[in-house]
């Protein structure tokens, strides 16, 4: 029996209904070409729920009392992707060399920094940033926290466990970070100093639910906006803008830009990297 034979077909109209439902709740947008992804990842849910086809699945999500919980599971299944330590290292270098020193200057009075990894997946970015802060040698005695938020409870459970296979450190930058991890039963487990900084929680970026209440100094939102359509991206950015301290930094993925999305941030070139900053005196976003 092959994969092809066992697969439930997802008709175009049901794909559109599912995608609209997921979009309405989480802002995630699946382009037409990703129909196969929904078919492959959500297909096994039909048997699990005792449903005949994807039309029944859509009705279940829409009408059944268990629909909202299943919708969250579906969104998780569709957005979980393998990641690794030291991804897009140039930005992390800019963070380490340019942004951290400036934060030390600006926040030296209060000696307190809050950072946010929005869409933290399985936590690699949170631990990487925590390691960079500790490695900087300038923040001893400071009150530090790196918040990681994600929609996926499954990913958050893995992030909290903080245990990774050796392959997660396959990039050169990742290998350098490995000294903050201990090998235990074949897996690399985050050391206690990293764990003290890392805080994880569930959040819906579209609605701003679950984001840290206290203002943050830096937001990492890398390769996350690409899951949203433009109106949803704007909404996500408004929530992130509201959470950022004035003068706070926003780091997006290389493939992402604020062009046409938000004029509430200033673009700042640091080395070869383009990062964004909430202007001083800007209490909220544009009306």
């Amino acid at each position, binding site marked *: *029996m*092959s*994969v*092809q*034979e*066992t697969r439930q077909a*997802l008709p*175009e*109209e049901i794909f*559109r*209904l599912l995608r609209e439902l997921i979009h309405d709740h989480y802002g995630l947008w699946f382009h*037409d*070409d*990703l*129909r*196969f*992804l929904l*078919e*492959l990842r959500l297909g*096994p849910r039909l*048997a*699990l729920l*005792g449903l005949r086809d994807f039309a029944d699945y859509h*009705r279940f999500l*829409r*009408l*059944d*009392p*268990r629909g909202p919980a299943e919708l969250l599971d579906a969104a998780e299944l569709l957005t*979980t*992707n*393998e990641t*690794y330590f030291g991804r897009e290292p140039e930005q992390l270098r800019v963070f380490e060399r340019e942004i951290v020193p400036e934060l030390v200057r600006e926040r030296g009075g209060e000696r307190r920094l809050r950072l946010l990894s929005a869409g933290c997946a399985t936590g690699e970015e949170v631990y990487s940033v925590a390691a960079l802060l500790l490695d900087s040698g300038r923040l001893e005695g400071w009150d530090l926290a790196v918040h990681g938020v994600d929609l996926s409870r*499954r990913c958050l*459970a*893995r992030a909290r*466990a903080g*245990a990774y*296979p050796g*392959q*997660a450190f*396959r990039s050169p930058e990742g290998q350098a970070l490995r000294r903050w991890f201990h090998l235990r*039963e074949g*897996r690399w487990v985050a050391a206690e100093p990293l764990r003290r900084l890392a805080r994880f929680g569930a959040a819906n970026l579209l609605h701003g639910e679950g984001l840290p209440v206290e203002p943050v100094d830096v937001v990492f939102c890398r390769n996350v906006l690409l899951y949203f359509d433009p109106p949803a991206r704007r909404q996500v950015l408004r929530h992130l803008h509201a959470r950022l301290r004035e003068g706070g930094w926003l780091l997006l993925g290389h493939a992402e830009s604020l*062009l*046409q999305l938000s*004029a509430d941030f*200033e673009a700042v070139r640091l080395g070869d990297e383009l990062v964004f900053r909430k*202007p001083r*005196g800007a209490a909220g976003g*544009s*009306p």
Partner: protein
Amino acid sequence: MNQASSALSLARHPDEETRYRAVLRLDAGVEEELDELLARLSDPSWRVRTAAVERIGALAEPARASPRLIDLLDGAETIAGRAAAEAALASLGPAALPALLIRLASSSGERRLAAVSAVGAIGSRRAVPALVACLADPDPALRAAAAEVLGKVGGAEAVGALLASLDSDDVTLRATGLDALGALRVSPPAARVAALLADPVLRPGAYRALAASEEPAALPLLARGLMEQGRTARLAALAAVGSQRNRRSAEELAVLAGEVRRLSRGDVAVADRCVEALGSGEPMVAEGALLVLGWIGDLTHAQAVARQAVDDRLRPLVEHALEALPAGAGLVEVLGKVLPELPPVARVSTFAALARAGQASALQALQERVADPDPQVQAEAIAALGRLGDPASAPVLGGLLTDEAPAVAGLAADAMLAIGLRSEAGRRAVLLDCRARAAAGGSGALHRVLGGCGEAEDLWLVRLGLHAGSVQRRASAAAALATLGQRGLLRGEHLPELIAALGDEAWPVRVAAARAFTALAEANFDARLGDPAIGEHPLCDQAMDALRGALGDREPAVRGAAVEALGACGRQEHGPAVAALAGDNAAPALVVVEALRALAKLGPPDPALLERALGHADPEVAKAVVAAAGRVPGEPGRALLRRSLASDRWDVRLAVATAVAGRGDAGLLEDTARAAAADPDPLVARALADAALALAGNPGRR
């Protein structure tokens, strides 16, 4: 200085942040401030320009700004200023169209071009006739721009004009027309595309157009596309093959696979080019390339295929491609070399391929990974063992059926069912394991496996589950009974435990019990005219009484499941009770939808009741009404369908297309054809057009 004059003066301040904040305070409704906002559209800062666009978009009377914005489309000094004017026009929406359409008749080619672009940004169908006229403009750039905009706006008239543009002498127009049709997901007839393929310039667009084709004749053209020397055309053909995978049946794809194999035998470079395409970064291209490599089945490329399993989206396709390769020592050797360089999740896919090739240690590696601490690796390993279907994996997977994580137990149940349904030896191994575990306590996942591949002798084990302490186990036992019923293993059985489950304190158990009765009724439907007293009726009298009682359950999901079961019995006597639920617009959509579907099984529904149900707020109810209306004879049924054609929900209109096609009522031909021409949604327009063709006695396209 008052606030407005302060904002006006600060809008020209040298500091960008100050200008930005000032612009946000300007009111486009005040003439002087509108002047400043229009001037700020050419500001050097994109933040300030964006803010000006936003403020102009808030204007209550768009006509005050649109003529001046249109002047800026080609009059602004900078390109950024022109783009901002276009964005501002788009934010004003269709109200800006009349002035733009006048501009389309300008004698200046540059002005006409700017106007076409702005019309595209607004995206209104009212502009289609003017845009179609532009396809004959003397300026080739304008013709192409108009075709591109028609591809954004859509509609039957736009599609007709774009199809006609494929016969133009202007190659740019033909290429843009193809792309525009592709954007609308409309595929021209394959014979027409075949002619366009003669021109190398048009090939990429032609292959993209074939991606949405449903004609058998499109497949050989795509196979030939894989032989293209030009990379862009070749990648377009591969992406179209990837798209076709989602559209075609296994039989149709087998025809394409055969053609690909035949061509690749004559040109070994076909496979090499597919390997090269795997690195294109385009998911659809990679999907097509993996599919083709699987069809070609050449071991030389197995490593390149296995490496793609790193990408989560492509992993299932990688498994499929590896599965298609000839199993044996050669495959084991090739994949064994690539294994060390793969991350853990991707390694699972390769182990699966190696196990299929007969490597016992790979099967063992997979069996060990079902206990992996990484949930993703664990899930992939469980699923892989299910796909492999080896009876030897049953005890390993059986141990997970009682896992405390429901997702793990559920995946293990899926895998056990896959093994059990694969072969008689597999079924025996699975049942042997499950019976032993069920006797020792059981679980919800275990019940599911027993329901799916158990025998009549397993009935008592499942019935025992209805007395379990856990809600989940009671519900899954009821669901397992339903599955046994669907498999014809229960005929006219009296199941007092199931009837009692309809009164269970936990609503999920009550829902599962009602659904089990639906399955039993459907499986025994042919006995409905028999004597209930001797068990010939689908359900016994006590079950009927319990289901009628469940119609008043406090939990909507139970009411919905109970009404579905009564509908499945097909007895007219339940009609009034079902109709009462169907016509209750205050009831939850779940209940009303199930009641409408049940009513449809009891005969043609009452049009007045359906009319009332159309007033329900939920679109799922509207779709159920449409499905039922398709069965209402004569004018009352037509009236309901016509009314639903005006729904602002595309899915409701699509349901009308399905109902009309199924009804085969020529009295709806004119309405359907008219709606097809006017519908803004390409999918609905196509479905309505197909329905109209079917009504006209010309089946034509599917």
